[in-house]
């Protein structure tokens, strides 16, 4: 089953929201496109400049995670879905990987800082809600939310 096909079976974002979907190749040069989309959507919803930057960063971190750990096969893809509600932006990023290490959510150890593994901690810090889901046949999905006016 194709990535797009399997993703269709995943839980849909609330139907009263507008959906914007991007399917990107697992190539680093396309992450800027995801940032651009995140920035455009968040800006249009009315988030302030600082929050738009936070959302851009969180999306880029999730894309980086998908490319590094979620797209093991050459020429694979990952999928970004923006759910645009009146008061909430929901972003799901799904890849075919096997998930994450929960220790990556912890505060970085400043006595012995690591060169990697900061991405999920950053997402968790910047967004209002973050969920992780791993399914055997579909892969790993991170869903993050940002509320307007919070």
């Amino acid at each position, binding site marked *: 089953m194709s990535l797009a096909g399997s993703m269709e079976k995943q839980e849909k974002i609330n139907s009263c929201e507008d959906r914007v979907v991007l399917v990107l190749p697992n190539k680093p040069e396309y992450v*800027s496109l995801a940032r651009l989309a995140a920035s455009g959507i968040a800006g249009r919803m009315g988030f302030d400049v600082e929050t738009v930057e936070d959302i851009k*960063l969180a999306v880029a971190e999730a894309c980086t995670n998908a490319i590094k750990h979620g797209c093991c096969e050459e020429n694979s893809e990952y999928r970004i879905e923006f759910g645009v509600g009146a008061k909430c932006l929901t972003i799901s990023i799904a890849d075919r990987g096997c998930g994450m290490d929960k220790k990556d959510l912890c505060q970085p150890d400043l006595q012995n800082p690591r060169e990697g593994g900061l991405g999920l901690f950053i997402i968790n810090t910047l967004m209002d809600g973050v969920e992780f889901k791993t399914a055997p046949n579909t892969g790993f999905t991170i869903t993050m939310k940002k509320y307007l006016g919070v």
Partner: protein
Amino acid sequence: MSGAEYCYQNDGGRCVVKVKGEIDIYTAAEFKKQINAAIEEVTGDLHIDCSELQYMDSTGLGVLIGALKRMKEQGRNIYLENLRPNVRKLFAITGLDKIFILEV
């Protein structure tokens, strides 16, 4: 825009690397190459002028952490100068503003 540009200047004996643009998973490898080259070329501390660094994420932080480890082993330091608010925030939320020297 995605990409970064670099220029070097010897500012009264200080080695300053000026970074322009965006550091992400696509550009981090070149950033690492440029920073490592600067570490090799000079003997003193390294100053990185970030006034035109518009965006950086954890991939850039990783490069800087690796560079700082190398520098500290040699008794040298890295100074990050003129960070924009979005980049400064990245250091603040990760706590890395406590191990890097951030200058206005």
